[in-house]
């Protein structure tokens, strides 16, 4: 299926290649570069590129292009999903998946890539299995290995690979048994000029960090499971029980994983936690005026934090001179993007930024106002109202420490002006 993989950085340097079948010369990447040069931004590179004999399926993530070469018909999502999973694994192993990290850890990276696919077909993708096969290196282990002559590579097949719960390794032992669940919701919204919501949806996920000894069997129940009608689960979740009883019952993998994600669609009413009051105008000759203020709304008494606004100005804008009453702003004169970092919104003193815009001389005034992207976080609240009822553990004797955290974030939160 997947023939080869090339990892390319933003400078167009192919700094890693891996072939699972016969070797394909890296000149195949030229086709990719050709398409890339036509795209305005790296994101605009189409994920599937057809060349005379090969097909290039690529993803762009962490400033890197991962280009997979396939020669025959294959479900493109299969490859895309795989590539993202590769990056997830790198992040899991090394903390991030940047070019520097990959270059630094190339041996482990290469071993991982070799283990993940056999003949282009996934062999071992579960994080728990991979971690048993190839232990993530850390300083302590590196020292221990040099002393004892042991290596990071395991000599036995991880038991998980053969069991019916391949995601969990066996023989897990912790002194502190703990299970944390983060319920993170992202609000995607489009707000139009007049402030009314055009579309809004919530993308939620439950990320878990479970460090429990033995083989715990957990059950997570929600106060209001009815909210969730479209969701996806980690393979460990027993789907039948969810269907029948609306409880999440599972034997967790060891470590961090995404237990489930859910989607609350446009049909439902979604609360919009912030509003923008804006007045942006361009005038012939003198440039323009810019005046935006932000305020909280429907936040259930919680403070809105980490607020920032991103305004992509039209290309004809030369510069902006603004004064914020809270936070600070930066303007990138190349990409014409203004970012205003506000931080926490104090309801008594609404953040406001105002000033003038200068246009390139002679350029026609822009016909449309920019669409403002808003970022924010609200802790201790899930905007959908989802609440965990209880977490029970079966199968083990000890008493684990349990914790649940709620966060609401802005996803693609856009205000048209």
């Amino acid at each position, binding site marked *: 299926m997947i023939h080869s993989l090339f990892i390319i950085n933003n400078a167009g340097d192919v700094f890693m290649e891996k072939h699972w079948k016969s070797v394909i010369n890296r000149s195949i990447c030229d086709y990719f570069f050709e398409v890339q040069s036509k795209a305005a931004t790296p994101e605009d590179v189409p994920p599937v590129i057809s060349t005379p004999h090969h097909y290039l399926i690529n993803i762009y993530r962490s400033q890197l292009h991962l280009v997979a070469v396939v020669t025959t*018909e294959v479900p493109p999502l299969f490859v895309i999903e795989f590539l993202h999973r590769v990056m997830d694994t790198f992040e899991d192993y090394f903390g991030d998946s940047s070019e520097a990290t990959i270059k630094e850890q190339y041996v482990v990276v290469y071993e991982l890539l070799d283990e993940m696919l056999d003949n282009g077909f996934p062999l071992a993708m579960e994080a728990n299995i991979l971690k048993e096969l190839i232990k993530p290196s850390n300083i302590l282990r590196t020292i221990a290995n040099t002393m004892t002559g042991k290596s990071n590579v395991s000599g036995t097949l991880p038991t998980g690979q053969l069991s019916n719960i391949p995601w969990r390794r066996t023989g897990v032992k912790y002194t502190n048994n703990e299970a944390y669940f983060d319920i993170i919701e992202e609000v995607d919204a489009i707000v139009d000029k007049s402030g009314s919501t055009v579309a809004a949806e919530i993308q939620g996920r439950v990320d878990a960090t479970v460090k429990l000894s033995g083989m715990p069997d957990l059950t997570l129940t929600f106060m209001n499971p009815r909210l969730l009608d479209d969701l996806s689960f980690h393979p460990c979740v027993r789907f039948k029980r969810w269907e029948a009883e609306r409880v999440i019952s599972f034997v967790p993998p060891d470590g961090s994983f995404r237990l489930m994600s859910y989607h609350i669609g446009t049909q439902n009413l979604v609360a919009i936690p912030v509003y923008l009051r804006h007045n942006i105008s361009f005038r012939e000759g003198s440039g323009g005026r810019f005046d935006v203020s932000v305020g909280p709304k429907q936040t259930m008494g919680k403070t809105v934090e980490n607020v920032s606004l991103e305004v992509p100005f039209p290309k004809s804008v030369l510069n902006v001179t603004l004064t914020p009453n809270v936070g600070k702003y930066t303007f990138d004169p190349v990409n014409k993007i203004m970012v205003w970092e506000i931080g926490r919104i104090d309801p008594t003193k609404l953040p406001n930024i105002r000033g003038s815009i200068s246009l390139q001389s002679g350029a026609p005034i822009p016909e449309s106002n920019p669409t403002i992207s808003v970022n924010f976080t609200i802790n201790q609240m899930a905007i959908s109202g989802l609440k965990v009822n209880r977490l029970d553990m079966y199968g083990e004797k000890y008493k684990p420490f349990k914790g649940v955290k709620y966060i609401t974030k802005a996803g693609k939160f856009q205000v048209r002006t």
Partner: protein
Amino acid sequence: MASNGGFQNSGYNNDRPPSSTGSGDADVATDPASSSFFMNDYKKHDDLKQMLDTNKDNLKLEAMKRIIGMVAKGKDASDLFPAVVKNVVSKNLEVKKLVYVYLTRYAEEQQDLALLSISTFQRALKDPNQLIRASALRVLSSIRVPVIVPIMMLSIKESCNDMSPYVRKTAAHAIPKLFSLDPELKDQLIEVIEKLLADKTTLVAGSAIQAFEEVCPERIDLIHKNYRKLCNLLVDVEEWGQVVIINMLTRYARTQFVNPNRDDMIEEESEKAFYGSDEDEEKEDKEEEEDDKPKKKPYVMDPDHRLLLRNCKPLLNSRNAAVVMAVAQLYYHCAPRAEVGMVAKSLIRLLRSHKEVQYIVLSNIATMSVKRKGMFEPFLKSFYVHSTDPTHVKLLKLEILTNLGTETSISTIIREFQTYITSTDKEFAAATIQAIGRCASTIPEITDTCLNGLVRLMSNRDETVVAESVVVIKKLLQMQSTDSVSQPQEHKDIIVHMAKMAQDITVPMARASILWMIGEYSDRVPKIAPDVLRQCAKNFINEEDIVKLQILNLAAKLCITNSKQTKLLCQYVFNLAKYDQNYDIRDRARFLRQLIIPGEKAGAFAKYAKKMFLATKPAPVLESKFKDRDQFQLATLSHVLNTKATGYREIPDFPEVAPDPTVRNVEVPTAWVADTNLLAQKKKKKGGKVKPAKKKSFYSDEESEEDEDEEEEEDSSDETDSSEEDSSEEEEESEEEEDEEDEKPKKKSKKVEDEEDEESSEEVDSSEEEESSEEEDEEEESSDEEPQPKAKSTKAKTGATSNAAMLLDLDFGSTVANPAAVGKSDFLMPVLAQDMSSLSLGGDTGGSTTVTAPSFIPTKTYELLNRITGGGLSITYRFTRTVSIFSEKMASVELTLTNSSDKPVLNVKIGDKKLQSGMEIFDFPEIGNLGVGATVTATMGINFADTTQPATFDVCTQEKKFSVTVKAPVGEQIQPVNMAENEFDKQQGKLSGMNENSGTVDMATENTDIKTISRRVYEVANVVQVPSMQDNTYKFAGKTLSAGALVLISVKLDGRKAALKVNCEKMVIGSMLLKDLKDSMTKKD
């Protein structure tokens, strides 16, 4: 890089010691491709080699790490091959692993040297550690060296019988590798694939299907037997396997089931064609029953079809986008229309995923939304464009929004579009205008609003927007005027407006459109049109080609309608065009001139100029780019690219009439007995969970006791029992089969061992625990039918008039006497057993066979006691080839005692026995009085313990003692077993090497027919033929009496030559048997 590689090959294939690299360096220096960095690199290689040659693991590891770094960066490290390959034996796992990685990368380039490592892998394949076995197979199969193809084949065959499912998975991966290396091996590989497809572990399933897809996707027949198993296992297969399996099953469903939506399409017809006429009725009867459909209903989904859909549904909640998409396309292509809708929600969820996922999902939704508007209508707002979306995503969303537009939703969509037009992304803005045009053309209610909106856009500051609007307006007007010819004055103002703009617009396409429009509708603007032409003529030479062509057109049209005003202008334009640089324009001008301004030699066409130029033109159709995309299967690469990708397989149309659904029943008796055997063995291995044979099944205690006497004869009643078992099993798989069953007289005769009684009861027990919903359904179905099977099984037995006809009466009795035998739980048994077995792990299948009746009983007798030495008592013996009643390990020996003396011989019995260890004799009952001239036969049992040692014992009469020896040819120490061909091949594959004896014999031509060959084989050995698909290859199977070791004989004919092969764990038996067979084959009749 290539040139470097070449040079290094020449330099280093000779395995030159690393110290003498002087000449190599010189080469590098002269090589233009190698820059100075390569020199450094090259020196580096030198110390790498030294590091690899040390015996310190950490140095080796360091060196290997650096080498892998080079490999990863794509730098050439092939010159290190000799130094690296040595370390393949390293004890250090990480070094070894890295060497493996290196090997798979460079082995192809250094084939000779790569061969050095092969033996290491072969050894590793026998390692007790499954990870080592698996990785050895992985590397071995990844080394693309054609020389080792036979070794690879052998390793794959061995590994697919491995105990560890992980190794079997690796074997499945190795199959396509080998196939790509040598496509000639396809047939052999298919056999292996078949074996792996039957594997019951979830780990193997996905990889096996992947191998199937890559090697033999056309062999859909291999799937039948595994279909239900695959459906049931699907949820537990790892996600990647799920994608592959669902895709394969989609294709399968399209070939094996009828279209669930056909009622909507051809309801009337199908009624008639399928169920209307009486003649057809009979023919269709079978099919109808098989489909389990009541007659009134036109369509009822095949239960297997339903099974697939039902088992895939939970996968919509998978975290893996590819799995969700695979299920979505399955539903789109194979599900009843009403059910397809439910996939929409999950697809919408995927839209929040990575942008690449978004792109693929959106393009699939775009295709779906063309045909199934309703599916995505509730999610309209999810397709609203965010300003941060990549352009290709924006365009797809636009496409979908346009497709989804209906009378009710269009106003919101158009309002949304209006904001898009102002987007800074001009490509997107232009696409939006086109989208508006499409909406306007499909929904007549809004056409006017759209037109007005577009006209307003023509005063937009942005040129692309204006140009695009002009083009779209032109198309819309053209469509409208075709629709409503009755209103010629309509839209006059728009045309006037556009004519005014003609001089201001610079985008050629837009200008051309305006000119075309003025020409076409010049009757509506009779005053303005000539003026436009005048202005254009002035500027003709500066125009783009496309505009020039339209000016010519305009001139021609005006000249026809209004020649008074425009003829001169027209001539002027034509003259200008005559000397244009572009030959198209010159050509056009010449052509038009002849028609419009005919000279003396005017052609006949000139009269018709008006008709030609001012005919009503068909309006362009504005339609989705995705309209025809559904010719490609969704979720495929071809679909995304909208061209056929290499290796794309068309999604087949549903068949008109479903092919025989019974093929999916797993009813081959040997097959399932084999499976349950397996299960039982597995269970035994797992610590003896096997319960003591509770005779709960057909074989009630009384029955077997009753039958005991008869059993002594030959084919015992067990045999009929087994056929009863067969038939009832099949019946309850699906009752539809019953009719067929009746027709087919059962020819299978079987000896069922006690062991199997155990198993069958065991199956019931275990399967009760694991009833899935599917099985419950079947239970419901079958319980309705409860009284029926009894009669049926009896009927089936009537058919079973094989070589056990004489036992029929008794059999009837026993069935009637045991009504419980067809009770519900038993009734369910085989299906469950089969499902159970599908869940169990595959494993060693030593005895997955059933003992069957001999195919031939030799009449040859041997002398035991000579008349002279016996003082008038002579004894001869022969082998009856029946299973001894005394012990199944014994060969039955029939003694014929004749008294040729003049007085009776009294009290004949067996006295002392001198036996080798392990051998046993069961005496024949004492013969009290053997009268003068009388002949008596007696049967004794001898267990030869699979040796060729004779059994020596004394035969005592009242007066004397005679020491006699019975020697059994090896062929008589075998009992025939039934097995399927694939099982045979599998076992034969296992019994290779030392356990294989082969030879070739020349045969008389007249002896090369199957009859003679099998007769000859049967004469020598008590085996049974295995039905074989291969031509000219005859296969026979048996197992030794004592140890139950399999004996496999295959005869491959090649003209007069016959290649004999005997596989047996017991080497002595194998070789002896081969010798006997050779003798038998070559002897003259």
